């Protein structure tokens, strides 16, 4: 009641200020008039009565001010006064203001863009209600801390755990042949197999229609129903609600559309947004490991498992429960689950997993962007400092007529707050621009026929972060100058327009700023340089086979329901006919290609080398494999260093063979020839496989990977359904596209060709353009940082020169020559540069360590990087001190002495 009352009065004095003031005036005038009338009545003259009355009231204006104090809105009126004053004084130095705002905008823009990236990769919650309680369950082995579960294991997890309000499973998004009606040729779309309780446990209500019923996931092959993703529904069916109940064809099987997922739920993954969801019981129509039975085999580990933690159950309890369950699996199925554990992870833990490189780039980008902002802030602080100093007299006047120091600091902080807010707005614009620039690379970075998208957005979270940063930088930039300028000596301040705090401390603040700038920009440049070198290193070193004249096309006969023997026949005919097509020199089939497609993974293979002393805690090792036909090494022109290539005589009837890379050979047989050695599959008494050849080590998954073990299996002994055809053409590989299409059409007109492109095109996108996004970004940060540092350094020396013009004049008048003056002016700057570079080198080493640890793993120090960056930095900074210093030497003493 009382608060409401006083709030009403406060609001009234804020919003009806003029009326309240005039009422106050009227009230006091009324009193005054009565008082004068009283005086006149007592026999005083009109004038004397007025004077007496004024005295009695201790002055009208003073009383008004006291009354205003009682309103308790001083902070606000002061603030609006400050804002008005700050805008006026910023407007007076419009050039400086613009420079400061731009500087801050660049800094904040860099951070907000990179933060939006990191946010999407790490922090953004799942697009479901109560996302915090959704946990990920993973199977763990020695080699893979994030393995999938099998469907059978999932059923056990679902039925035997008590910590969760539901456990869901889904397979990775896969290519599905989709046609809206039976007559249409299938096109490739991305579909996801999910457990029947998927939507219900996640709490996702369909936009229209319904989600799966629990009983629709019980009987294999019975319930052919599909839920469409919101974007797919809009593009494919123009958002038509009558699509419900209609039949669509997926991989040749008719499915009934039962629901549309809501716009708020594009999917659980960061990048992939499924076009539709199918119940897991329909798995037989979709592609899974052909050697296994998805619904039955406990070791066909292809499903991701997530669970919603019950309220009141702790993560630790869930972990303990799962650990027990994993132990039970191990004792129940010793063959399949030996040395296999399980773990529960939060979404943050899953997204910052050690084997994922994207978020690490995000972290490094944010760190670098923050250092750009730091350089920007120090630069702005430096500018404000010199601005504040040239306003010493104004501030001294204010202090002298009674303004409190706090009040002045507040005024100056208001100024930097306004600068920072403008900078923040500019930063949001710049950040938005950078994010759009990322998006323009989308098709380049994510080469896929599946619906994947770069998820970076300037969303509310990124905007809030930018604003918070702007406020923080206001404090950073504004506080030091404000504190320093209000400490000025009043007497001197009133005498001169520009005065320093006496003593050696006077330029200390600015010196620190310059050192920080030089150091941070040196670090940024080093990082940019290392990034370029890291990628070059990674790419050039190990993909040096001829990449021109290669055409790629992928096939998945399961999309049209081929059985294994049909598949085998198809691939046999395909390669035969393609090889004899016009313009084709050779052709080969592989499961995946070097720098492989993201949608196709290299299969891991468990093995034990024969006569190898296994570590006590291990049953077997794991290596990534590619399955290739006998023409592979010939077509790709990959050298076999020892031994032989696969031959047609290697068939399913003959002993099993494999080819390994140099890295693998050196790893297990460092002192002997690997050719002729044997490995056993799965365990020491598994099927023997003889190594018949050693080939060169390549980059297999990414340009920034460390050299890894790799093994090739012959297609004849290890059939795979989804294969990529690589053909080598005599001329332009795209010329062979027509003949290739003819061949495929003659074999089966319904089979879609996926990912058709030249290898060179693929390689340039994957290994050149993709990394160049990162290189450009970091490079831009380095250049911006350096420009800011140069501007800061130049400003410092120029300012110093202009302040000491008189002193220089005196020195020159009494006989100092130009080089003395030059030395005097540059000396300080150079010392600062020296300290800055020394610090920057240290920071550069630290960043190199960080980048090596997180990304490139190249070990040693990149001498060339420092040998390039440091002299360049030195040259530029020396120039930045020399130019203004030279000006000092050109001052005529007569002029300088008159100068004030």
């Amino acid at each position, binding site marked *: *009641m*009382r608060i409401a*009352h*006083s709030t009403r*009065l406060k609001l009234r004095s804020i919003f009806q200020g003029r009326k309240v003031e005039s*009422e*106050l005036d*009227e*009230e*006091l005038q*009324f*009193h005054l008039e*009565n*008082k004068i009338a009283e005086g006149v009545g007592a026999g005083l003259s009109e004038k004397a009565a007025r004077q007496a009355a004024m*005295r*009695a*009231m*201790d*002055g009208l204006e*003073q*009383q008004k001010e*006291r*009354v205003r*104090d*009682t*309103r*308790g809105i001083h902070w606000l009126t002061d603030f609006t006064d400050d804002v008005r004053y700050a805008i006026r004084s910023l407007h007076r130095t419009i050039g400086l203001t613009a420079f400061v705002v731009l500087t801050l905008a660049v800094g904040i823009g860099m951070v907000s863009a990179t933060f939006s990236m990191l946010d999407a990769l790490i922090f953004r919650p799942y697009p479901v209600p109560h996302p915090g309680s959704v946990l990920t369950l993973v199977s763990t082995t020695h080699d893979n801390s994030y393995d999938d579960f099998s469907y059978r294991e999932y059923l056990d997890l679902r039925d035997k755990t008590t910590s969760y309000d539901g456990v869901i499973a889904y397979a990775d998004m896969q290519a599905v042949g989709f046609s809206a009606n039976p007559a249409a040729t299938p096109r490739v779309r991305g579909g996801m197999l999910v457990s029947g309780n998927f939507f219900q446990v996640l709490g996702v209500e369909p936009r229209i229609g319904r989600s799966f019923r629990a009983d629709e996931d019980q009987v294999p092959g019975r319930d052919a129903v599909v839920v469409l993703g919101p974007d797919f529904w809009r593009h494919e069916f123009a958002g038509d609600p009558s699509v419900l109940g209609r039949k669509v064809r997926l991989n040749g099987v008719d499915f009934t559309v039962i629901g549309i997922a809501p716009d708020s739920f594009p999917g659980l993954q960061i990048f992939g947004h499924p076009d539709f969801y199918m119940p897991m019981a329909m798995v037989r129509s979709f592609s899974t490991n052909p050697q296994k039975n998805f619904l039955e085999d406990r070791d066909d580990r292809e499903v991701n498992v997530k669970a919603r933690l019950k309220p009141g159950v702790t993560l630790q309890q869930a972990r303990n429960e799962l650990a027990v369950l994993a132990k039970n699996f191990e004792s129940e199925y010793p063959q399949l689950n030996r040395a296999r554990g399980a773990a529960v992870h939060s979404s943050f833990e899953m997204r910052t997993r050690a084997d994922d490189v994207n978020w690490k780039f995000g972290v490094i980008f944010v760190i670098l962007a923050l250092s750009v902002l730091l350089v920007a802030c120090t630069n702005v602080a430096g500018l404000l400092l010199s601005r504040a100093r040239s306003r010493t007299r104004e501030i001294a006047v204010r202090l002298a007529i009674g303004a409190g120091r706090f009040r002045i600091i507040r005024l100056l902080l208001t100024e930097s707050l306004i600068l920072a807010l403008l900078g923040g707005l500019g930063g949001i614009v710049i950040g938005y621009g950078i994010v759009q620039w990322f998006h323009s690379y989308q098709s380049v970075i994510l080469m896929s026929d599946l619906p994947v998208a770069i998820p970076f957005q300037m969303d509310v979270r990124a905007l809030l972060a930018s604003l918070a940063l702007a406020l923080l930088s206001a404090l950073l930039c504004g506080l030091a100058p404000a504190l320093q300028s209000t400490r000025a000596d009043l007497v001197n301040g009133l005498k001169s327009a520009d005065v320093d705090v006496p003593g050696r401390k006077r330029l200390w603040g600015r010196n620190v700023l310059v050192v920080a700038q030089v150091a941070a920009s040196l670090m940024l440049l080093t990082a940019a340089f290392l990034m370029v070198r890291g990628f070059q290193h990674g790419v050039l070193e190990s993909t040096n086979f001829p990449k021109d004249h290669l055409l790629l096309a992928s096939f998945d006969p399961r999309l049209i329901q081929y059985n294994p023997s049909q598949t085998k026949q198809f691939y046999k005919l395909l390669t035969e006919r393609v090889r004899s097509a016009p313009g084709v020199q050779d052709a080969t089939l592989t499961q995946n290609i070097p720098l492989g497609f993201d949608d196709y993974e290299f299969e891991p293979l468990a093995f034990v080398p024969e006569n190898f002393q296994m570590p006590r805690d291990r049953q077997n090792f794991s290596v990534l494999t590619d399955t290739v036909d006998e023409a592979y090494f010939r077509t790709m022109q990959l050298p076999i260093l020892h031994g032989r290539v696969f031959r047609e005589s290697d068939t399913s009837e003959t002993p099993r063979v494999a080819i390994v890379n140099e890295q693998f050979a050196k790893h297990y047989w460092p002192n002997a020839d690997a050719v002729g050695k044997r490995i056993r599959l799965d365990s020491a008494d598994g099927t023997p496989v003889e190594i018949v050849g050693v080939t060169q080590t390549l980059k297999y998954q990414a340009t920034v990977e460390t050299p890894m073990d790799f093994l090739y299996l012959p297609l004849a002994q290890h059939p795979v359904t989804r294969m990529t055809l690589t053909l080598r053409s005599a001329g332009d590989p795209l010329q062979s596209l027509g003949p290739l299409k003819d061949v495929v059409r003659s074999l089966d007109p319904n089979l879609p060709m996926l990912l058709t492109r030249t290898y060179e095109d693929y390689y340039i996108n994957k290994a050149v353009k993709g990394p160049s996004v990162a290189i450009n970004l970091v490079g831009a940060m380095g250049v911006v940082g350096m420009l800011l540092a140069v501007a800061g350094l130049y400003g410092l020396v120029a300012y110093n020169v202009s302040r000491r013009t008189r002193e220089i004049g005196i020195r020159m008048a009494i006989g100092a020559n130009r080089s003395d003056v030059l030395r005097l002016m540059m000396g300080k700057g150079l010392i600062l540069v020296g300290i800055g570079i020394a610090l920057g080198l240290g920071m550069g080493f630290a960043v190199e360590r960080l980048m090596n640890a997180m990304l490139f793993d190249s070990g040693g120090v990149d001498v060339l990087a420092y040998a390039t960056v440091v002299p360049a930095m030195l040259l530029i900074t020396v120039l930045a001190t020399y130019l203004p210093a030279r000006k000092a030497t050109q001052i005529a003493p007569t002029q300088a002495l008159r100068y004030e």
Partner: protein
Amino acid sequence: MSKPTDLVQGTLDLLLLKILALEPLHGWAISLRLRAISGDVLQVSEGSLYPALHKLEQEGWITAEWKQTENNRRAKFYSLTRMGRQQLESEAANWHRLSTAISQIVQLAEGQTSEA
């Protein structure tokens, strides 16, 4: 001009509340009333009257209204609110306790302090 004895902190509030408890008045009338009641003993600077009144208004103890005076001038009349009345009662009680205590101390004969 001789400065009036400073009022004990907070007593001006009490006086104003008490005066307004009798009838709604405007500022000038309040100052006249103050002078009339207390004679020359308590002098309130006529200036400090208004900050005090506005403070009481902020507290919600008194409320203001523009009305015509008997001379047909517009003036701001203050009157006591319900909360103001409660405040007056508690402040009056406080004042009574305090002044009784002080006057007892003042009336003590020399040498009696230790037994008080």
